[in-house]
């Protein structure tokens, strides 16, 4: 055994420095033969005879060298080096072929991998907790109620105490708060969470510690854990911040920990910091009206071996045994248990499938292109293969050489593709707007990269070997003589190539229509008619903290003062306070309309509630459908009034005159009289329909804080310098009340659709990629077709045909290919777009504009790609052809 290893090592070493061993032997042999010759001379032979005899006695040197070589080293390495050199020479001799193949591979691999990685990481965002499939989300629903799914805190507490299927359960609420640091106020998205949240998610803090159970009680909860990005941005990554206090708008908190950089909360938006949920558990459990709070999200980790069905069953039993608080008596509650990633997938399942389809299409195109080119080249080298065979090359040797050639090509293409993937990735990252949540450094998805490379490598090799192997079986004689005289073979091959081109056209159309539909959806989403004109409106988001503005009176004073000042800014046409479209989240406020029965167990509808300034709608350019707007005289002392949106009127008071009817939100609050019906304003994002909304004057409202409210200022002049001015005016009223964000209403609307825009752009990128690859394919096929029909074209021209006719010959063929491909592709595209219907916004899956436009684009590109071959056909010299016969 030891000897075998020695032999192996020796052979490998020699393979690396083989020439020396060869020279060595030559010298040895020469010396040996000289000695032999001397001996023969000593025996009486002449010099010549002696030399001859010596050579004979020694044996054939070159033969010996060959067999020594076999022993000395691994033959394959030898021939491999030869083959590689030859392959590189061949590629240099056919640069266009090499470049097109390498370009197709690189484009396909690089672009598809990087686009997929971006989409996967940013738009689809798979959950990345340890054993994430054990995590579930829980929520309560009113039976047969389809709006919000939140959980009553006492129920959550009971769930936690009584279940036997979860190893841990935690609840959390997303709360907007303001951080006051270095004299600046920054708005943050924060979470109030149970102390157990980190352990349920199996996450460890980077620095410091998690919350203690004792800190998760009202009064003991003045501790905070910072997220990594916030720690870097606001505190410069300074480790000593642990133990210090930070000031939020609702108090001072001591920093006890920092989260690691890759940690994400199970929420739709990124979270900046976390404080304890801080509920008063004893009080909650008494379930007295007014003490019961809610939590929005509950997450739990199932025990090993527990299935989600079992967990669901257990929780249903527990839920059925709970006593609801008095104001919900008679309402049946149910518990909902879903896997966590489904809850926060953000519509991912279809999206992922769609994107994977796109990647698959692109790779198919790449394979088709490669097949096309390799097959064409194989055909052109039939003579060469025949000659090799005739000269004694074994099939194995030829196969090895072709394998090496294909591998060299594939390696070049894959290598370039890898480089391209990284480069494209960094390009894409720089295009992504910063406001999107997502990993800081975008990882390339190596599964897709590996898959793409394997496919490309495989197809290059398969198609490179195929035709040559087939032609190796052809008797050398026939291949060596006539070249192309076999008409039948030529036609059949052309049909294959045309079929390939049709396939490519079909795939390209699918990608184009997909991308087109996505772009149109996005366009409709962004530029839909919102009922108001957002031009030259500046919004200023404020977040009135409950601590400093505890009563309606104080809030009104503040808002009044700010509005007054804003009105006085030169150039301002109108000011207002209230809802800032487009909003996000869902309506959650339950309400009651006087005179309409509140079904005890039925749908408990919810509506949005906004506190607004007088004449807000006039300022936005809208007019009430009926009744009037809120006026300045609707103040604290006067009749409580409200405006309702059309959606509210439609759902609650259909067919009736809403004016004069009364409604209220909380029970035991005064009834409000409806004085006007206003047009809908989108409050749940641009993609959702407008929700039923109620507007009350801010002077008559309880608390106007929360997300998505602020001041609106319409100006007649350029809006840019307005920002600092607004801040200054607000600061003059209350220096400690920060203006969170100032942005144009236009900008706000744009930012709310950042994700759909990114999706549209990326899918559009796929479409363009597909178009380029398909055009490349068509180009090659047309070129091959022209080349294989050279004789026919020459004869036609010689018989009186015009060059122009030849152009039409080629273009006609390419149009036919495109037509067939279009037909097939459009059919597939229609079917696919019906399957992916949920992705389109207000655009039908069979939108004619998109389909016709894509078809026209494809045909135009295809014709452009066929132009060069067509020109070549027209330039064929008939004399040349005839001479070669």
């Amino acid at each position, binding site marked *: 055994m030891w*000897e075998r290893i*020695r*032999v192996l090592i*020796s*052979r490998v070493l020699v393979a690396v420095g083989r020439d020396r061993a060869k020279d*060595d*032997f030559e*010298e*040895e*042999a*020469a*010396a*040996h033969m*000289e*000695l*032999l010759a*001397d001996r023969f001379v000593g025996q009486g032979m002449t010099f010549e005879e002696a030399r001859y005899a010596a050579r004979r*006695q*020694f*044996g*054939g*040197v070159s033969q*010996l060298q060959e*067999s*020594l070589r076999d*022993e*000395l080293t691994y033959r394959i390495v030898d021939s491999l080096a030869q083959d590689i050199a030859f392959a590189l020479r061949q590629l240099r001799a056919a640069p266009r072929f090499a470049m097109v193949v390498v370009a197709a591979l690189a484009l396909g691999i690089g672009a598809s991998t990087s686009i997929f990685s971006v989409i996967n990481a940013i738009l689809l965002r798979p959950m990345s907790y340890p054993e994430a499939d054990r995590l579930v989300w829980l929520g309560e629903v009113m039976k047969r109620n389809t709006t919000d799914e939140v959980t009553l805190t006492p129920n959550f507490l009971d769930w936690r105490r009584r279940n036997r299927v979860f190893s841990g359960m935690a609840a959390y609420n997303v709360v907007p708060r303001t951080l006051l640091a270095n004299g600046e106020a920054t708005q943050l998205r924060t979470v109030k969470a149970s102390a157990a949240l980190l352990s349920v998610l199996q996450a460890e803090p980077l620095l410091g510690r998690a919350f203690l159970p004792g800190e998760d009680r009202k009064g003991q909860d003045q501790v905070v854990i910072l997220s990594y990005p916030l720690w870097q941005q606001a505190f410069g990554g300074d480790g000593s911040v642990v133990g210090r206090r930070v000031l939020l708008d609702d108090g001072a908190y001591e920093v006890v920990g920092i989260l690691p950089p890759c940690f994400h909360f199970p929420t739709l938006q990124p979270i900046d910091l976390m404080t304890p949920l801080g509920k008063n558990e004893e009080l909650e459990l008494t379930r007295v009206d007014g003490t019961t709070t809610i939590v929005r999200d509950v997450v739990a980790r199932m025990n090993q071996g527990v299935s989600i069905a079992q967990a669901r069953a257990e929780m249903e039993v527990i839920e059925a045994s709970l006593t609801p608080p008095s104001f919900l008596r008679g309402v049946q509650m149910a518990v909902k248990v879903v896997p966590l990633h489904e809850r926060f997938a953000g519509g991912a399942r279809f999206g992922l499938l769609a994107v994977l389809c796109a990647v698959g299409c692109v790779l198919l195109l790449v394979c088709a292109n490669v097949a096309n080119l390799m097959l064409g080249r194989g055909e052109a080298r039939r003579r060469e293969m025949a000659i090799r065979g005739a000269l004694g090359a074994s099939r194995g040797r030829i196969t090895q050489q072709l394998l090496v050639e294909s591998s060299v090509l594939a390696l070049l293409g894959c290598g370039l593709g890898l480089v391209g993937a990284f480069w494209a990735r960094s390009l894409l990252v720089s295009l992504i707007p910063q406001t999107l949540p997502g990993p800081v450094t975008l990882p390339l998805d190596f599964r897709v990269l590996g898959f793409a490379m394997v496919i490309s490598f495989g197809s290059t090799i398969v198609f490179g070997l195929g035709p040559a192997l087939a032609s190796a079986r052809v008797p050398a004689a026939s291949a060596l003589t006539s070249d192309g005289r076999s008409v039948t073979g030529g036609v059949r091959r052309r049909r294959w190539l045309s079929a390939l081109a049709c396939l490519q056209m079909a795939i390209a159309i699918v990608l184009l229509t997909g991308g087109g539909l996505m772009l149109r959806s996005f366009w409709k989403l962004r530029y839909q008619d919102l009922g108001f004109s957002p031009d030259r409106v500046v919004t200023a988001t404020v977040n009135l903290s409950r601590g400093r503005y505890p009563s309606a009176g104080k809030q009104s004073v503040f808002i009044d003062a700010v509005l007054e000042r804003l009105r006085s800014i030169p150039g301002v046409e109108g000011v207002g306070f209230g809802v800032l479209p487009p909003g996000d989240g869902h309506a959650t406020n339950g309400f009651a309309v006087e005179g309409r029965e509140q079904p005890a167990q039925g749908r408990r509808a919810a509506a949005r509630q906004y506190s607004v300034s007088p004449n807000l709608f006039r300022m936005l350019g809208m007019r009430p459908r009926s009744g009037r707007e809120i006026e300045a005289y609707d103040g604290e002392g006067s009749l409580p009034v409200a405006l309702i949106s059309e959606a509210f009127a439609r759902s609650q008071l259909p067919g009736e005159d809403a004016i004069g009817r009364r409604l209220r939100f909380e029970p035991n609050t005064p009834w409000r009289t409806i004085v006007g019906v206003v047009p809908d304003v989108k409050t749940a994002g641009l993609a959702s329909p407008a929700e039923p909304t109620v507007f009350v004057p801010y002077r008559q409202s309880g608390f106007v804080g929360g997300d998505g409210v602020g001041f609106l200022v319409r100006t007649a002049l350029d809006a840019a310098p307005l920002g600092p001015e607004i801040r200054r005016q607000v600061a003059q009223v209350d220096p400690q009340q920060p203006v969170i964000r100032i942005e144009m209403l236009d900008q706000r609307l744009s930012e709310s659709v950042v994700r759909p825009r990114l999706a549209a752009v990326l899918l559009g990128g796929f479409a363009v990629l597909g178009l380029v690859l398909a055009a490349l394919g068509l180009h090659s096929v047309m070129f091959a077709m022209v080349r294989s029909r050279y004789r026919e074209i020459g004869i036609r021209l010689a018989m009186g045909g015009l060059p122009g006719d030849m152009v039409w010959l080629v273009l006609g063929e390419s149009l036919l290919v495109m037509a067939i491909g279009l037909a097939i592709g459009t059919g597939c595209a229609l079917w696919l777009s019906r399957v992916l219907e949920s992705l389109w916004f207000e655009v039908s899956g069979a939108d004619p504009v998109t389909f016709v436009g894509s078809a026209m684009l494809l045909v135009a590109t295809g014709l452009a790609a066929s132009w060069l071959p067509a020109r070549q056909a027209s330039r064929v010299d008939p004399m040349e052809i005839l001479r070669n016969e």
Partner: protein
Amino acid sequence: MTPLKPEVLQGTLDLMVLQSLAALGPLHGYGIARRIEQVSEDSLKLNEGTVYQALLRLQQKGWISSDWGVSENNRRAKFYSVTRSGRKQLTRETESWHRMARLVGKILQLGNEG
């Protein structure tokens, strides 16, 4: 002596080369060929170049080593010498040959008697 069959030849040639080097000390290829010619009483008709194949095999297995030197006719030649593991191998092979010879002899004897 009838000429040996080629399959047997490879193994025995290696052995003869190894033995020659062990007995006579460092030799070059020509010297080894002469020694074999002498020992086999000129009945081994092989091309002398095949000695180099045997030398390569032995060298790859580490049983002999080589060094450049000067031959009788003042040319550069490679001299081969047996290594320690080569000597061990020689002993092993010799023993195994003897064992086989005894065994075959016994069988033949039995055959003769029976």
